[in-house]
């Protein structure tokens, strides 16, 4: 049993990699920096909202270009022509024998394949997540290949009744089918990781011996590898990869220099401002003002895109089943997951809708922020694809059909936003990934259960 299990795991690991077909490498020519290139890189972000939506106030009535935003989507009025509202997409991978209401529909939102039902023994997301696939192929030129942000720590414990570890509800980015990415949840630490050294008053960090120290522990790891069984070796491989990724960062002086050169006085002003906000927040508001904390995380991601520290990011407003108390919103008395089980009671559904609207509001904030930042001849939003999604439609019914999906930005001119589109019933969500891959100039033959691109969204 044990052996069979490992070899399957290994095999699937291999599969995850072969999903990606060879790309046309429209990459930066050697010796040239992205900053003096005429065409700016395309950024990808995915914002995840837990617990679904009030289905009656999500989709605009009219399809096509002339549509009126619903009450939930109203915060997007300033960027109405920059968004796509995609209807009737579904993630078939979230329906399988044993799948539960949330976990099986969260961890695989970006992989499109069924996860393994497990309390932890053989964690498996079905495949590599779409964001990580991009990171793997397009993330080599930047400081970090991708960033993962969130608002809540990974949920502790397991859900014994459904047989899933709650870890599944806390992660949408999978570096490999068996390895979830770590998320930053504190603005202070997320900011410092990218920008601390770019602040005007920063002291250069003395990392003189870092490389030697890493060399030593790598030797330790190599020696250890030889004494372990295969499952252990797999686990230790994570360690070695992580060490290598740090080495890459300190080795690549050119990358660091070109990043530093990119920090114009204009950008530095933004950085200083955000840094101050985080400081003030930590002093006064910690844990209270969720809106401000959310916006700080999103601002950090916006600046990470603007400075080209990275081009790929995911953000989770909350873990799935999140029961964040939203009583701070006028008209809401209760918490998120609880209200998502609204019983079709009008009062509860309205509270649920207000919570949805709050999420859309933050999404709109992010899109407007990107739009305000110049990027090449246009702005950052024009050169981005920003997905907003939940793994459920109606939270009360845990419905995985007709998922609420938005895409913001022009994708560098590859997308045709400003549309409310109705696709054929049960169109695979993976078709969207296929389309976005094309916009990113990394055409895939297929991804998960995809059947073809969403032609309507392309120019």
């Amino acid at each position: 049993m044990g052996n069979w299990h490992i070899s399957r795991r290994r095999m699937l690991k291999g599969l995850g990699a072969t999903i990606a077909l060879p790309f046309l490498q429209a990459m930066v020519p050697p010796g040239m920096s992205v900053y003096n290139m005429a065409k700016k890189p395309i950024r990808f972000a995915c914002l995840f909202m837990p617990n679904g939506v009030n289905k009656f106030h999500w989709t605009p009535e009219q399809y096509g270009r002339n549509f009126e935003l619903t009450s939930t989507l109203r915060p997007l009025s300033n960027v109405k022509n920059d968004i796509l509202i995609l209807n009737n997409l579904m993630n078939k991978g979230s329906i399988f024998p044993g799948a539960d209401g949330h976990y099986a529909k969260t961890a695989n939102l970006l992989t499109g394949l069924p996860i393994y039902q497990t309390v932890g023994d053989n964690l498996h997301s079905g495949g590599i997540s779409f964001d990580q696939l991009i990171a793997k192929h397009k993330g080599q030129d930047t400081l970090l290949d991708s960033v993962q942000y969130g608002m809540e720590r990974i949920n502790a414990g397991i859900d014994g009744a459904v047989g899933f570890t709650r870890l599944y509800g806390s992660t949408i980015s999978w570096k490999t089918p068996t390895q979830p990415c770590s998320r930053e949840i504190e603005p202070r630490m997320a900011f410092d990781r990218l920008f601390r050294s770019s602040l005007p008053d920063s002291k250069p960090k003395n990392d003189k011996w870092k490389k030697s120290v890493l060399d030593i522990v790598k030797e330790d790891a190599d020696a250890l590898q030889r004494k372990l069984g295969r499952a252990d070796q797999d686990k230790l491989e994570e360690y070695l990869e992580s060490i290598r990724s740090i080495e890459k960062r300190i080795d690549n002086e050119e990358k660091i220099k070109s990043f530093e050169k990119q920090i114009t006085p204009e950008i530095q002003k933004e950085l200083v401002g955000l840094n101050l906000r985080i400081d003030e927040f930590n002093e006064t508001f910690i844990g209270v003002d969720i809106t401000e904390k959310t916006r700080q995380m999103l601002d950090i991601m916006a600046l990470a895109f603007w400075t080209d520290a990275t081009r790929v990011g995911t953000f989770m407003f909350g873990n799935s089943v999140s029961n964040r108390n939203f009583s701070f919103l006028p008209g809401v008395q209760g918490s998120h997951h609880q209200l998502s089980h609204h019983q079709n009671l009008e009062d509860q559904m309205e509270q649920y809708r207000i919570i949805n609207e709050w999420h859309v509001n933050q999404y709109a904030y992010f899109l407007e922020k990107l739009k305000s930042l110049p990027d090449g001849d246009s702005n950052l939003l024009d050169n981005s694809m920003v997905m907003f999604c939940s793994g459920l439609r109606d939270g009360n019914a845990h419905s995985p059909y007709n998922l609420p999906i938005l895409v913001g930005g022009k994708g560098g001119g590859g997308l045709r936003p400003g549309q409310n589109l109705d696709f054929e019933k049960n169109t695979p969500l993976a078709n969207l990934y296929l389309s976005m891959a094309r916009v990113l100039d990394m055409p895939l033959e297929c991804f998960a259960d995809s059947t073809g691109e969403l032609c309507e969204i392309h120019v």
Partner: protein
Amino acid sequence: MKTQIYLTAFIIFATLSNTIALVLEESDVDHIEVLMPLAEKHCFSCHHDTKRSGGLSVKSYFMGINDFEKRIVRGGKVWQHIIQTVQSGEMPPAGEPHMTQKEREAFIYSVNSILLRSLSANDPGRVVIRRLSHTEYEYTILNLVGVSFDAKSRFPSDGSGGAGFDNFPNTLFVTPLKMERYYDAAEEIMDLAYANPEIWQGIVSKPYKDSLWNRFTNWLSNIFLGKNHTGKHEIAAEEVIVPFASNAFRRFLKPEEKQTYLTLFKEVYDGTKGNDRFNVAIKETLKAVLISPNFLYRYEEEQPVDHAYALSNFELASRLSFFLWSTFPDKELFEVAYRGNLQDPVVIRNQVKRMLKDEKSKRFSESFSTQWFGVNRFREDVTADPERYPEMTASLREAMYNELVEYFHHVLTDRKNFLDLIDSDYTFLNEELANHYEIEGVEGAGFQKVALHNNPRGGILGMGSVLTATSLPIRTSPVLRGKWVLEEILGTPAPPPPPDAGELPEEAAADKNASIRDLLTFHRSKPACINCHQKMDPIGFGLENFDAVGRWRDSYGLDPIVAWDTLPSGEVFNGPSELKKILAGKKDLFARTLSEKAFTYAIGRNVEFKDELYIQGLIKNLIENDFNTEEFIIALATSYPFRYKVNDGAEKFKILAKN
């Protein structure tokens, strides 16, 4: 040794609880032939792949051509559950074709025979290398370096696995981001240590001065002994590095490792200027120790054999120490391991007794109890609505959390009876919490044991932490509390609601005008809900006298609280005291829950069906010793899976041997 195990196995076979048939003669009966038609007749119509009632497809075990037995054994835990429900008459449910007593017996007998035949007492299982949990990292750094480091807020969080603990190897990852944080942490920890002379002296006991004299003698020896001799500073460095790294790696540093670390030391020493270069070089070297995989991972080396083998003494010491102390072995345990007799059960017994007496065992109490009962995040996560319950301040939540830890630790080390977890006549309070509970006579911020006279609060079911964590933000939830007791105390979780259930009855009836009676009736009125809710709801209603933040109440405003109910097994109770008496009487179930939780926590892998004999052994130990805590921990620490392991790639060595 083996004979002994088989003997134990035999005894356990003979005393298996009533769910498993007593006599097992090998016969020619083909159990599958008996089983398949019965399952077809009574199970398949609901438990097939598409419907999967209760999340279970019995049919899937009988698909394909053969190997049915193997599949049943692989799903052993599920099948144990199946025979339980068939035996209790819960399945097939009322309204479905009746299963005759004869059919029932044949069904249970055949399943039991298949399951029991598969068990043997010589597979200890294997544990994947495990990264230190953030808690273990904190305690290890505290004991190793002497510095307090808040790992939980500095490192990206981990998930939990197995029975829900954060020390489960397969859910502990190292990612690039975590690795960066480990590096930064090592740097910060060494800086903190160096900044504090007292702490630094604990690491560098004999400070090496880069004095003129030392430089002069080093220079002289360079001339006369050649470049490669060992300088005084290197000897001094070795005296620091070897004990530090040996503790950090939980075994003696190997000669080649010593050389590696000395090389780093020399590189930094030679490349640094100034009087302080010895300390600078030590700092960098110890930093490397703190991010080495030998430190960050607990691992057990593979031996080139294809059968189970005993862990090395150091490995066993490490298991013991992380189990009870969440840190590396102390000096005595390290020495016992070195003397080489730790595999002796008597030695383990003495060590466990000593370790439980040590105050470090409170870490086990905290880590194990708060995670088991699902309140480990109680202090940070505010579940109760702050507007509705402004009294739930940070300090009150802290007090509630501490109540559980103090209580559990007292049960573990003083009272020594695990049954007190369910029911007792005392608890641990400080003034603030006592006021909250309206108990008089407790003063000060410190916790003290408080006798509860005629107060139904004793045991974890009367604790503010558990009661709040199982409530919704603005009110209590009998369903959540009932579900919690089923899962965490009795170990018999109700299956999840069917996908088409949609509405949770409780929520619908949460209308302010609905009385508790309406709630009761509503809950059990729906055929889709009745099976599970009649298990959960009564228990929850029995605890309705405790409000959503754990205070006692007699009524909801004007409506009196009705806290009587009937369990599906027939017992009638009124109020929490009577409910607790009934729960405390379900010793077999509680013993199994406790055994499986502790097994997973201590060993670091899930309980599988093949562990049934060991679990039965632990249950028996609890029942026979009246739930004695010390005897139970000793039984676990001396158990075969705790002390042995088996390779996962046994064939690898066979191939090697052939060559």
